[in-house]
């Protein structure tokens, strides 16, 4: 078997050294009734590389790849062009097959990369410190709520109605077990987010207010007034960002007063991957909150010769030391995705990120105008970055399914996100990125026009 280097000669020689007659003798502690006689029934035997590749390729061909269709899906996962060198770099064996950098003398590659990554994320988010990643945006969102509880010693979290419903579900699921109260809501179908409605829900028991920016409908608003209102009641503002490219065009959450900023980093370097692995980002605006952060942190130091180097630090927050009193149980996080993000961000630089963001927004504005010109379609948003909501009289979810049969991936319907809500039936989220062509936009407009007449 191509991945097993031992030969039968090796095995015999080793058994001699061990002093065992055969390998079964090494399993003597396993009760005989628990051991199987031979290979497990119901599974195939080993296969060649060629055979396995053929089987998997067959399965891959049963899917419609985003590159092969006009593509407008967003809702928390975005399709961007990842430069070719990113994938080559992450496949270097010294990155791909390395471990968590617990022995820093032989892990400076990973550690320096993490320090650069943390710095990039902190700056992008307008914060002082970012961690070395979490699983994804949704679990990072929950971890932020948990942290706000520790910092304020309160247990009531107020979630904006325009937070991604899957993120809301994750927070509500976890809160069932921690006893936190979650005050959530539904989004209002208005051109602007209902900030005053959100502010009115903040009280003296509130640990945090959680707002998505841009929100689930793609809307944008100034969060400073929410920050002030939260702080006035002793609560923290948590801002969730699911499209980091937006931050190349719009103000950072940190500069508007967010205390904790979390998000999904997938757009930069990681790719769609049918939902995972993704990249949770987590940052705090004020360094005084650092010891309450979950996840790994990489810090600068010097070695015995006085040379600058990097190490994992403040480890006493984490599970392997603090055990039941840890800030989180997280161990493995998303290191290789953090590398991909960091490489892509290094290639972009601020200049490239601003260009990328401008191009996304330009195409989105173009698409919005063209879609608004389709009879029966209106664009909801006053403001948006690269994703907006269109409304029409029809079942958007059904239309999306039908258009998929025509090989058009039209977007994520509000019905898909909020299946119970009849009023949302005619709503569709449309995401546009630098990978979208004007031809794609024309195709979508024509197809919708046809469905709606």
């Amino acid at each position: 078997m191509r991945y097993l280097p031992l030969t039968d000669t090796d095995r015999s020689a080793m058994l001699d050294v061990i002093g065992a007659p055969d390998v079964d003798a090494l399993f003597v502690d396993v009760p005989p009734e628990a051991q199987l006689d031979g290979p497990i029934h119901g599974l195939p035997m080993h296969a060649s590389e060629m055979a396995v590749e053929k089987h998997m390729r067959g399965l891959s061909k049963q899917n419609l790849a985003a590159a092969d269709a006009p593509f407008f899906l967003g809702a928390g996962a975005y399709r961007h062009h990842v430069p070719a060198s990113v994938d080559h770099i992450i496949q270097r064996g010294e990155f791909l097959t390395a471990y968590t950098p617990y022995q820093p003398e032989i892990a400076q590659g990973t550690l320096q990369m993490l320090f650069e990554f943390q710095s990039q994320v902190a700056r992008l988010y307008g914060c002082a410190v970012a961690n070395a990643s979490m699983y994804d945006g949704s679990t990072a969102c929950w971890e932020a709520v948990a942290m706000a509880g520790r910092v304020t010693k309160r247990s009531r979290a107020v979630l904006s109605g325009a937070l991604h419903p899957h993120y809301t579900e994750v927070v509500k699921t976890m809160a069932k077990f921690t006893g936190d109260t979650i005050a959530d809501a539904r989004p209002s179908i208005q051109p602007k987010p209902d900030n005053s409605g959100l502010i009115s829900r903040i009280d003296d028991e509130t640990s945090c207010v959680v707002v998505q920016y841009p929100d689930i409908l793609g809307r944008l608003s100034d969060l400073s007034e929410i920050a002030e209102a939260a702080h006035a009641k002793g609560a923290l503002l948590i801002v969730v960002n699911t499209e980091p490219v937006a931050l190349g065009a719009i103000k950072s959450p940190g500069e508007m007063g967010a205390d904790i900023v979390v998000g999904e980093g997938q757009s930069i370097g990681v790719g769609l991957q049918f939902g995972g692995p993704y990249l949770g980002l987590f940052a705090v605006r004020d360094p005084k909150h650092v010891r309450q952060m979950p996840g790994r942190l990489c810090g600068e130091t010097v070695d015995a010769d006085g040379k600058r180097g990097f190490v994992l630090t403040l480890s006493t927050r984490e599970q392997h030391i603090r055990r039941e009193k840890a800030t989180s149980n997280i161990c493995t996080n998303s290191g290789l995705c953090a590398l991909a993000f960091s490489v892509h961000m290094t290639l972009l630089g601020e200049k490239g990120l601003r260009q990328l963001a401008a191009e996304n927004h330009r195409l989105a504005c173009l698409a919005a105008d063209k879609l608004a010109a389709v009879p029966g379609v209106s664009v909801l948003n006053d403001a948006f970055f690269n994703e907006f909501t269109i409304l029409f009289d029809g079942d958007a979810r059904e239309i999306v399914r039908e258009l998929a049969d025509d090989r058009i991936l039209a977007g994520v319907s509000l019905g898909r996100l909020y299946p119970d809500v009849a009023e949302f039936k005619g709503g569709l989220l449309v995401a546009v990125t630098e990978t979208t062509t004007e031809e794609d936009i024309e195709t979508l407009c024509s197809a919708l026009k046809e469905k709606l007449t």
Partner: protein
Amino acid sequence: MARYFTEEHEWIDVEGDTATVGITDYAQEQLGDIVFVELPDVGAMVDKGKDAAVVESVKAASDVYAPISGEVTEANPALEEDPALVNTSAEEEGWFFKLTIGDKSELEGLMDAKAYAAFVDEL
């Protein structure tokens, strides 16, 4: 002023109704380089034998217990800037917090310096 010791390696200096608490030199030696001390808030009530503070080294975090019950009146401000004081001067400048004593009888059962030294020898 009298100094007493617990089996959990805390020391307590008693002067009238107030006391000062810290960890012993033996304890700091076991921990290695101290990097952070989490002290109780002024005004907090601590209970004998229960968690009062946390002392962190690079790879360990240990709970420090209150040797007796009382109300915290002061937390050592020097430790925030310089946690290394606990290593260099655990039983003097590296004190953790002061408290007003709730019940003096709780001092019974605590060891004096000689008894603590003997206790440590057995470990």
